[in-house]
């Protein structure tokens, strides 16, 4: 079972947050970042502001 959450930014629209990892495997991973946050909402708010990152998958780090 997964603990990932995916956020997709849409042009001019609210981003869509969904349960689960990003499964369309043919895409290229363009970046990786480890952040320290109080909860998932903070991570989502942060990711929303990253430039040129239309799809972000967020996973909890142990």
């Amino acid at each position, binding site marked *: 079972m997964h603990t*990932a959450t995916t956020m997709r930014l849409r042009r001019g629209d609210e981003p869509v947050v969904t349960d689960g990892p990003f499964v369309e495997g043919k895409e290229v991973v363009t970046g990786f970042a480890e952040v320290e946050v*109080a*909860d998932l909402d903070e991570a989502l708010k942060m990711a929303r502001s990253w430039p040129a990152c239309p799809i972000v998958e967020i996973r909890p780090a142990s």
Partner: protein
Amino acid sequence: MTGENPEQVSQEALARVVRDHAGRLAAVPGLAARRLLGGGGSRPGRGRDRAAALAGRRGARTGPTRGCSPSPAGAGSTCCAARRTTAPSSPSCTWAEPVPKDDRLRLIFTCCHPALSREAQIALTLRVVCGLSTAQIAAAFLVPETTVAQRLTRAKRKITEAGIPYRIPDGDDLPERLEGALAVIYLLFNEGYLSSGGARAQARDLVDDAEWLASLLAGLMPDEPEVAGLLALIRLHRARGAARFDDREAARAAGRPGPRPGGTTRRSRAATALLVRAARAHRRPGPYQLQAAIAACHAEAESFESTDWPQIVVLYDMLLHLAPSPITRLHRAIALRYAASPEAALDELKDLDRALDDLSAAPRHPRRPAARAGPQPGGQGGRRAGAGADHQPRPAGTAGRTAELELTGSRRGTYLHDRTLIDVAVLKGVEAEPDGGGGVR
């Protein structure tokens, strides 16, 4: 609910719900939610006892807060309000509109976090906020109980491990959570509408709650036509329900809706007007508006036969476009039977068999009885199975079977699939009557 002072209604409704459901709401909804969602560090399994103990202690100490009744149940609701606002991990929310007076509406939105799958959101909310049992949730989703138990376990695990906070969403976050919230209210209504035996009063409370939550939400979100659609749908079902259930099943089986108690026509008309206003103002059809429109067609009909079946077929077409489901197709087929012909409906049903079979493993779905040999009393107005009267020899097996749709509206026969509340027809396969040697050998 119309014409009453909303403040008074909210106080009374909240007090009654807490009083009657206090035990089922896992002691205190706010605490239960926080325990599950990981705020405040309560250890799982001990939360319930701690919640109960806290409820007693705090209730005695703090007294009633705004919006809570001073009845004995007030102790529980006091604790809920007090505890929640002092929780370190939930900052005060900023809502665009006035804060909803009902805590549960707020909690429903909180539990519908998009990082959870839609089924998980709904199952979790129904469990934690509305207090439904696993069995009740399983019946709502038409899945086995074990599936629901798994969904709940996974949801809780995801909440803990991914760090989903128990935080009341800001005004901006509300629209994305609306779909989940609407589904929760709808399923709550459905559970109250369908539940039989035992707690009749409890069922009525669930239905009252659902209608009240929907009307509260409609007031808060006037730009969302689906909310008005849900409210209209609930009110239309309630208005019709009084006419349909009780001892009127015999009339219904004969194809007539039965006498309508006075006042239901007025309520139906008011609900229909609400629907039409919302639909025209926004021109954004959605599943709840469409289902409400179908219910309105039934409510307006003078008699079963004079129901506007062609309009209903069109509405089902639109509904299928937005939310395809085998049960919706079944109901469209039934409407087609009256709008067009039994043969047209039977053609539709041929494809549906397998899809419906998959659903019949779920609780509450009536098992379709196996084909029965021998004469069958006719369905509508004494007519027999369509092609059975022409005395032609039939090949053995399925191909030779003629199905007659027999509409039996009954309280137990009402289902929910996904977000669709529809009256299900019990589909009976019958052997064509073996007239003069035309039967199967």
